[in-house]
Structure formats: structure tokens, C-alpha cells
């Protein structure tokens, strides 16, 4: 597959720490380093780390996975609204059968995501799990 080690290295801040750039003017979050804001075209950004917890808006389960994820299937994908209102997508992990429901609280954890390419690079990143402190 064409996803190479330098690309992984460039994206580590987001994948490891949910770090990115927020537009100072309109608040739009960018997980990549933007040249101009994708929403308002401003050039002023603040580096931020997104809150590591939020609410599961919707989820699905991938049963017929792409090649890189064959060994992980089936796996769950969630659309999550973080505490600051940012919406992100994530794999879901550490849940029991029937535990996944819309609107449950979820929190970020650091996990192995995949083994990539012929070199077999082990790539890590965030996933979300049902929050341990259910409030």
C-alpha cells in the first residue's frame, strides 16, 4: 500500500495526542497543518489538543474491511462529538457486546491501529472506548 513512514511521522501529533490547529477567527479544527482555514480562509491558527472525551453520536461495524484491516474485522467506527463541540471519527475499542449505544460517553485511548506495508511498521493512534466513569 502507498501509505509510507514519513506520512505516518507527519501525522503523529494528531494520531497520538489529538493535536491540531484551530482557526482563531471561526474556530474550525484542522487535524492537518493548514495554510488557510478551510472554512473562512484566515491564516491565524492556535495549536490545540482536543479534549479526550465526548459523546458517541453514531456508530457502525465494518464487516468487509479493506486489505490493511483484514485481521481486525469486524471493528466498530464511531462519530464522536468531543466536549468542545469538535466532531471526529474514530475506531471504537474495549467495549462489550451490546455496550455500544448512541449518546454514551466515550474517552480516547492510545492503541495499536495497524501493521502497515511490506516493512511491517506498527502504527499507533487514538481510538475511543466507552468512558469508565459513567456519569
Amino acid at each position, binding site marked *: 500500500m*502507498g501509505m509510507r513512514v514519513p506520512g505516518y511521522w507527519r501525522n503523529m501529533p494528531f494520531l497520538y495526542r489529538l493535536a491540531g490547529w484551530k482557526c482563531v477567527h471561526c474556530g474550525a479544527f484542522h487535524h*492537518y497543518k493548514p495554510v488557510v482555514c*478551510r472554512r473562512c480562509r484566515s491564516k491565524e491558527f492556535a495549536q490545540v489538543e482536543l479534549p479526550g472525551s465526548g459523546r458517541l453520536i453514531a456508530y*457502525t*461495524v465494518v464487516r468487509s474491511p*479493506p486489505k490493511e484491516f483484514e485481521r481486525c474485522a469486524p471493528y466498530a*467506527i464511531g462519530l464522536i462529538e468531543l466536549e468542545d463541540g469538535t466532531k471526529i*471519527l474514530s*475506531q471504537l475499542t474495549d467495549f462489550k457486546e451490546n455496550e455500544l449505544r448512541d449518546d454514551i460517553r466515550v474517552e480516547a485511548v492510545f492503541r495499536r491501529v495497524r501493521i502497515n506495508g511490506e516493512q511491517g511498521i506498527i502504527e499507533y493512534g487514538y481510538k475511543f472506548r466507552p468512558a469508565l466513569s459513567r456519569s
Partner: protein
Amino acid sequence: MAGVYVAGVGFTKIAEHWDKDLEQLMAEAAVKALEDAGVSTVNAIYVGCALGEHLQCQANLGALMAECAGLTGVPAFRAEAADASGAAALYSGFCDIASGRSEAVLVVGGEKLSDGLSEEVSSGTLMMSGRSWYEGFMGIDFYAMSALLYRLYSKRYGDEGIPFFPVISHEHAEGVAHAQYPFKIALDRVLESPFIAEPLRMLEVSGIGDGAAAAVLVSEELARRLKSPKIRMFISSATDYVNPFDREDPLRLQSVMLSVSRVLEHAGISRSELNMVELHDSASILGALCLESGGFSPPGAAGKLAMKGEFGLNGRLPCNTFGGLKARGHPFGATAIYQVAEIYLQLAGRAGKNQLDKARTGLAISLSGVGAAAFTSLLKMEEV
């Protein structure tokens, strides 16, 4: 802007073509289209293909296509916009004629998905639909994305009638010679099929197949000299944020909304004047979202209208008259050209058993991924 006319079309059956390479398949469609148009050469060739590098290790499809169609020497290159690549090629060809630079162009799209394993095709759609270091990294493929949209849709409006879209497409594909799945399926079978990514079921998504389609576009002056019917073409396009959940409302495909409004305005046609629409139903939910975002159904009502028969061949607005992406098939880079070719056949009165009564205008919506880009083509029969 000068008028652009479709002078002829050609396509292959969508199937698993084990005995043919990508360029052979495309040449077959190209030569058919040239013969259909009655032209022996063109000023330029535009090729649509999404996964040539990924599945065939093949780029440089422009020159390759020119050679295989016996047109070496003619300028040729490829346009790419994921599974709307064929529409990107149509757009390029359209602009070439509309600008007055060319008199005739060949637009050809092709994809040979059966050269890859289904997981590889899935990796391809994943790579092309979303950002490779976001959705791609996490294994969020096209199906998962569509499934999440489906969930949001069901929560807001309910899912009544959405699984009926494949039933309509298959009904229209029955007996169609070029369709990949030329048979009917009942709603029960759709609902009993296993999940591919819940709530999306296996029989709600398009399959994997090979196909190529081509169209010859010509100037008004050349159209007057050719024998083919005078069918004028318009095309518009728009983009949106690649990740639908970055959008203001993920259930409103802005790229569809904009490209449909622009093309109607350009053609001077209102929605009620359209005789047919080809939808991008790579997943049932996307067919519904195309109708709603394009202004052909109120939000949340497309499924209910589908159940009432509004989108059948005898309905208010016939959709997917040869089976759409679901049943005719969805060989990515060729799909948009199949859509336009099918409208052409309807307008030219060559649609066989699927012929609509008095079809004079038709519109096709082609998406890349879940609407990161939309291209809307419109064909209109002109009085001579």
C-alpha cells in the same frame, strides 16, 4: 459559450472481463462510440479512471487509450475524481468543445475492478474517498461512511423506503443487456441480506465489476452535419469538505445542491421539466440523499416517495432507468459515462424495453465518495 452535443455513445457489458485488459475494454467502448457518432477521428481524448495505478499498476492512460483506439497522435490525458472520474473526463471534454478549441472529442471511462481482490478494491475506495491519514488510517471505508450517514438519516427522519432504492434499480435492470445484475430482487431479500456496515446491507450497495463507456462530444456546427439526433449536453460540478462530518449538515450534499442548480440554470430548465434522473446509488442512502439534495424530494421523504412508485419507469420522475449503480453496475471511472449514455439512449428513442414516453430531458448525478465532489450532467433533445 458554444453549444456541446452528444453525437454517439458506446459501452461494454458490466461483468468480470477476465480475458481483457483495461485498455482493451476502453477501446471497445471508444470504437463503438466513434462508430455510433459516425466520426473517424477527434481533436482530443479524455479518459476517466479511478484505480488504474492501484489495481493495474497502470498510469499514462491517455496515450495508451489513443493507441488502443487507433488514434495515436491525438492529444489525450486522464481526469480523476475518485468514482466520479468519468464525470471529470466528461467535464474536461465539455469545456474543450464549449471553448471552441475542439470540434469533436472522445470521452472514455473504464475500470477493471475484478483485477483486484475485493479487499483491495475496498482499500482503493478507502484511499480515494477519504483522507489517507484520517479515514484511511483508521479503516473507515466508503461503506462505513455511508453507514454513519444512514444512521444520522434514520435518527432524523426514519429509514422508511431507503432499502427500496435497490429494488427499483434491479427492476429497471431486468433484461438489460449491459447490466451487471439484470434481474429483480424483492424488498425482503434486501432486508434479509447481511450487514456490510450496519444499518447498510449487502444488497444496498453496488457490486464489483468491470466496464467501459464512451461518448463522442461535438460542436454545434459538427452536430448539424452528423446524422445523429441533436442532443445537447450541459455539465456542472461543485466540491464539498471531503469528510461529510465536517459539513454544516452531513445529510445535505452541498456539492449536489450546487451542481444541480447550476446545470439547470445553464440549460434554462426547471426541475419539473426533467423526464428522468440517474442517481449515484453506490449505497441506497446516497441515492436518497442525491434526490433530496438535488431538490427532487423534500428532505426525509425520498424513501416514502420511492415506495409510492414515483421513481419507477412510469412514475413522476423515473430514476436509474437501466438499473443505476446498484444493478447496471458501478465500474468507477466509467460510471458517469454509462449514466450519460443511458440518458442519450432514452432521448434518442433507443432504450428498447426501458424506453420512456416522451423523454426529452434527463439529468445524471455523479459523486466522488460521499459527495466530496458532485458532477451533474444534463441532456436535452433539441428541435432541428
